[in-house]
Structure formats: C-alpha cells, structure tokens
C-alpha cells in the first residue's frame, strides 16, 4: 500500500541516522509528488533526532528544507505540473479555517502539521526530506525560481523564511533602516543577505571576533560588534531600529536592548529552552519591545523565495553526501559549518547502506 520510499531515519534518541525503508501515500487528487534532489540540514533536525524538545517519535526521518522536481500531480492540482522545480519547508498541513490560516499564517495554526514527526490527516506520521521522494498537498508546495541553484536555495525554505517574515511583519524592511543580526550561523547569515537586499544597514553581533572578516567582506554586513566587548557595545548603543536574534543558547538580553534605538524591536527567532532574564527598564523608559517569530505562512514563503530569486540570494552551503550525515550532525552541534549543510540526496542517498 502506498508508494515505496527510502531515507535516513533516527531510530532512537542517540540521534544516529541510518537507512530506513518506509512508504508514502499514493498521490492524492490535491497532492504533488516530487523526486527529492537536495535537503538542507536545519538545527531543528538535530534537536529532533535527539528528542531535545521531548516531542520526537521514532523512527524519525528529518528534513524540512527540501527541493526537487515534480514527478506526478493529482487530478485537482492546478498550480504545478511534472518537471516543475519545487520545494517544501516546515509544514505540510493546517486546519485551513482558523484565524491564522485565513490570514495566510498557517505556521501559527494550532493544528499545523510539521513536515516530519507529526501526525497527518490520515493518521500516518510525516516523514521529512532526508528521503528519495516526497508527496505533499499543493497548498504547501513552493515554486523554486529557475535562476537559483537548487542546493543553495534549499535552506531558504526554513532559514530564509524564519528571518524574512519578522523583517517584513515588524516593518524592519525600509531602506535606510539599521538592523542588527545576532549570531552568524544558518539563520544569521541569510538574515544579513536579505537585509542588505532590502537596502538596510546591517551590523552583525557575535560573541567572538573570528567571523568579522566573513561578515563584512563576504556577506556584505556594514559593521561587526563583539557582544562581550564593553567598548564596542557602548559605541553602538542606541543605533539599531531592530535586531534579529538567532541565538538559541542562554544569553544576556541587556546589551542587545541597549543597542536598540528607543522604540526599537528585539525579535527572537532562536528559542532558548530556559527563560532569559528580561531587564524591564529599557522597555519602560525607552519603549523597546521583545517579540518572537516562527517561520512564516506559505504565501509569505513564496514571496520570500521569489525575492531571493530576484536578488540572487542563496545560503552558503557545504554540500555533503548522505553517508556523511552523522558526521555533519556532530559538526553542526559544534557550529562547525559555514553555514548550512545540504544533503545531495539524489546523487548519494542509496536504498541500501
């Protein structure tokens, strides 16, 4: 029953990935089926294979930065056809009728279904993109621009939308504005690229000086501040309209709040597990705000990918073969990647180990 598929799955919370055979549903009337070419490795995949959030069920096939070529479409599909270059990000379903869904914000739907490890409408568990083929409802498929290399574009489907959405929603996308990006990893480096494409001035804030050269000379950031250097922080006080904070480790918000202009916005897109200390005075006396954001809706994701196509924005990736994935996870844990691993699925994922 269903169609055969194979991929890489974690079988327990050791997080070690190994070959896994399973089946995916037949292509339904609203479904799009595609051959997976590449899949990005998101830090969430690492959290999930190790069950760090306590919600994982095994076997778990991760991967929610998936790109490929359409092989089959259901009878009621109108927007895609065989041969199209498409992608799937973090969601494959939602209720379709709540306030969030109606506003195109499926990501905030309380019944949204994530691309892997979640229960689908047919009671099966969703399996992600570390696999040879994907089938997905048309409403959650993203068209990939022709001009973008698919491997380097794959991470846009999670990292890209995660930083694009809050820049737009919080009005931090006006040319001439000055934003900060905290943390230069998968999310951070893409944030710098989108912000520059929007015409913003960008300061990267990092705990060490080691990424300064990259940030300024390769990624195009305008300035670089080491957060542990009191003088650098002091010189940059009250200069930023907004900050995109990608750091998910516990850290201090006080110096970051100090960098904001009055009424500035600190947007958390990394999610530390433990609460952070919130100094209240900067909020009260300077009307600064702290807010969160999580990926984006489908319409917005398409808009983001189209913008990336227009401005040639892709992620900086290290393309790996499927059998390197466990080593990649170990390196990811130590943030040893500039800046996203992408699995060359079509060329290296084999049905037998």
């Amino acid at each position, binding site marked *: 029953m269903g169609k055969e598929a194979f991929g890489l799955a974690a079988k327990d919370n050791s997080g070690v990935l190994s070959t896994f055979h399973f089946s995916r549903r037949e292509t339904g009337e609203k479904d799009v089926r595609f051959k997976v070419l590449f899949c990005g490795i998101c830090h969430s995949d690492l959290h999930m294979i190790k069950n760090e959030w306590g919600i994982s069920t095994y076997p778990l096939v991760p991967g929610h930065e998936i790109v490929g070529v359409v092989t089959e479409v259901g009878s009621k599909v109108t927007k895609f056809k065989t041969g199209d270059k498409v992608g799937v990000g973090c969601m494959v379903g939602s209720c379709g009728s709540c306030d969030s869904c109606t506003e195109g914000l499926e990501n905030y739907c309380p019944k949204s279904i994530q691309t892997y490890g979640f229960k689908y409408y047919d009671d099966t568990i969703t399996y992600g993109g570390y696999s040879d083929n994907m089938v997905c409802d048309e409403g959650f498929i993203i068209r990939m621009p022709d001009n973008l290399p698919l491997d380097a574009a794959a991470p846009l489907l999670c990292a890209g939308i995660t930083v694009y959405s809050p820049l737009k929603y919080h009005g931090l996308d006006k040319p001439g504005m000055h934003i900060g990006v905290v943390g230069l990893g998968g999310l951070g480096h893409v944030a710098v690229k989108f912000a520059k494409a929007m015409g913003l001035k960008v300061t990267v804030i990092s705990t060490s000086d080691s990424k300064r050269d990259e940030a300024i000379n390769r990624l195009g950031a305008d300035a670089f501040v080491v957060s542990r250097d009191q003088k650098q922080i002091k010189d940059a006080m009250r200069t930023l309209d907004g900050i995109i904070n990608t750091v998910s480790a516990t850290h201090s918000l006080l110096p970051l709040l100090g960098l904001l202009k009055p009424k500035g916005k600190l947007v958390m897109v990394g999610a530390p597990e433990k609460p952070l200390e919130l100094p209240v005075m900067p909020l*009260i006396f300077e*009307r600064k705000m702290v807010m969160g954001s999580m990926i984006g809706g489908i319409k917005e994701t398409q808009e983001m990918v189209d913008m990336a196509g227009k401005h040639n924005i892709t992620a900086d990736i290290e393309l790996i073969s499927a059998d390197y994935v466990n080593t990649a996870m170990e390196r990811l844990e130590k943030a040893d990647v500039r800046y996203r691993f992408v699995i060359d699925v079509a060329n290296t994922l084999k049905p037998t180990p």
Partner: protein
Amino acid sequence: MAKSPETEHPNKAFGWAAKDKSGVLSPFHFSRRDNGDNDVTVKILYCGVCHTDLHTIKNDWGFSYYPVVPGHEIVGIATKVGKNVTKFREGDRVGVGVITGSCQSCESCNQDLENYCPQMSFTYNSIGSDGTKTYGGYSESIVVDQRFVLQFPEGLPSDSGAPLLCAGITVYSPMKYYGMTEPGKHLGVAGLGGLGHVAVKIGKAFGLKVTVISSSPSKEDEAINRLGADSFLVSSDSQKMKAAIGTMDYIIDTVSAVHALFPLLGLLKVNGKLVTLGLPEKPLELPIFPLVLGRKMVGGSDIGGMKETQEMLEFCAKHNITADIELIKMDEINTAMERLAKSDVRYRFVIDVANSLSPP
C-alpha cells in the same frame, strides 16, 4: 556656600518631605522660584499618592536625593501666569503630572513625547531646567512651565481626577501606542491597584472586553460589579488559567513585584501583546518559546507626552472616568504609605492638600 532648600529660591514654600530612607514624611520648609514669563503658579488643591512616591521616599531604586517632597498627581488653581503664557488664565483649574521639564527641541520633544526626551526632568526628586532640585505636590503650590501644565476638563472632579495624571496616562498611552483599542477585542489587566483599576475603566470605554487577572480573590466582586470588568481570573487557580489560554488580544501588566510572565503570555492569542508597566527591583524571567511559537510581544511604557496626557484627560472626562480614591489629610500620609505598602487601598490615596496642609 551652597544654598539651603529654604533660601535657594525667592519665595517661601511649605510641604511634607521624607528626609531619609526610612521614608517618614514630615513638615518641611523650602522655596520656589518666581513665576517666570513661561510659568504658571498653581495653588495645589489635591495630590494623588502614587506607588512611585513610596518607592522614592524609601530609595528603593537607589536614586533618591533627600529631602524628597513627592507628589506628581497634582490638581489646583492657576494663581499667576507669566506674560508668554497663552493656554491658561488665572483662576483656571489645572493639573501637573509626572514631568515638569524637557529640552523642548529634540526629536522626542518635537513629536510631543517629552517623556522620552533624554533631558526630561521629573516633578520631584529631579534636577529641573534651572539646575535646581524639583519638589512635588505634597506642598501648597508649585511653579511650572506652561508646557507641562494641563487644562483640567470641566466635569472631571479635582480629587478623583488627580490620579489620572500618572495612573491614567500610564495605562492610556500604551493602549494607544500598541493599538490595544479595537472595540470587541479582549484585554487582560494584571494587577488591580492604582493602575489596574483605571485600566479596567479605560478599557471598557474603548469598547473592549476586560478580564482582570489578580492574585486576590477578594477583589472579584469589586472588579465585576463596580469597575465593570467582564470577568475575573485568580492567577493561582490553575484550572481557570488553563481554560483561558489563548483568549486575550492584549494584556496590561501593572504588577510591580517580581512575577511570572509565562502564565500571562499563555493567556495571549497568537500575535498577542503584553505591556509591562511595573518596575520590579529584579529583572523578570522571560520565556522565549511562547513568544516564538505565537509571535507574541512584550513591551513597556512610561507615562506619556503632554499632548497625549491632555487627550487622556478629555477622554476620561467624556467617559466619566475617574479613579476610586480615599481622601486623606496631609498628616495621615505616613499611615497611608504603610497601607499602600500592603496594597491596602481601594485604589488610590489622594491628599486633600488645600484643606489639610498648614504651615506651623
């Protein structure tokens, strides 16, 4: 030689001051400046007792300069106006709130946001534009630049209207700024004290559904039957709190003690906004997951600009919004402060200054 409070200005003044961080208030002789060309001299009728007064007399925040004459919810009569003063005449009923000075030329001041001017000075315990210390409304009269004087609307009583000058603007300003005024939306008010009870009244006047979130079950009857709140949540009732998850569009958090934000954030719908107004001594703990998963926001606010404060007074006059007060005599102030420290007041003390403050 440094001038004493009594001699630094030409006009004798009298009030009650705290002389040290015991916070005990007692009669105090000082002086006030002459009424300048831009000034209005106000004979003080009433002055509200704000929790900030208590924090300041006890030096809770570490920047009190004794002697401190508190009081920034002042209503009185203009007895003198300087020759450049256009907005007020002698005999007008006027108000003075939390600030009495700013640079009047920066970006914030030009946007009528004097409260965010880096050179803003407070009505008391501050260095004013003339370089001398400011003394507040627990006194017979005060001299204030016209920019910082408010017209007290007809129909707004002087005694129960006085607390609006701080409590009122402190809740009104963020409700406007953060867009918490859409009729039919659901506002949570955490903490039912001086700020909270005014927030309920203003929320209802904006056409919002209002739920009070409080740690005191005893305030439920008042909240619903007298203040007009639609519902009441006891914050320690975990069942009821759970049932209310994801139901509120906005929360005004007036609680000034250290408290948990997690349960309040849970009450917000997706895109919900929580504005914190209290100034706890230690930082609060901010859980990030609820912000990220629900695109929620935590912001703060601090009083409001002068234009906005005037707008708030007109709004309250129109909707018959006043504070619930307990009128006290000047010499009852120390007992009032002790009761305020225990939140034993429904919901603001107001000093009947004109009738009870008498110099020896």
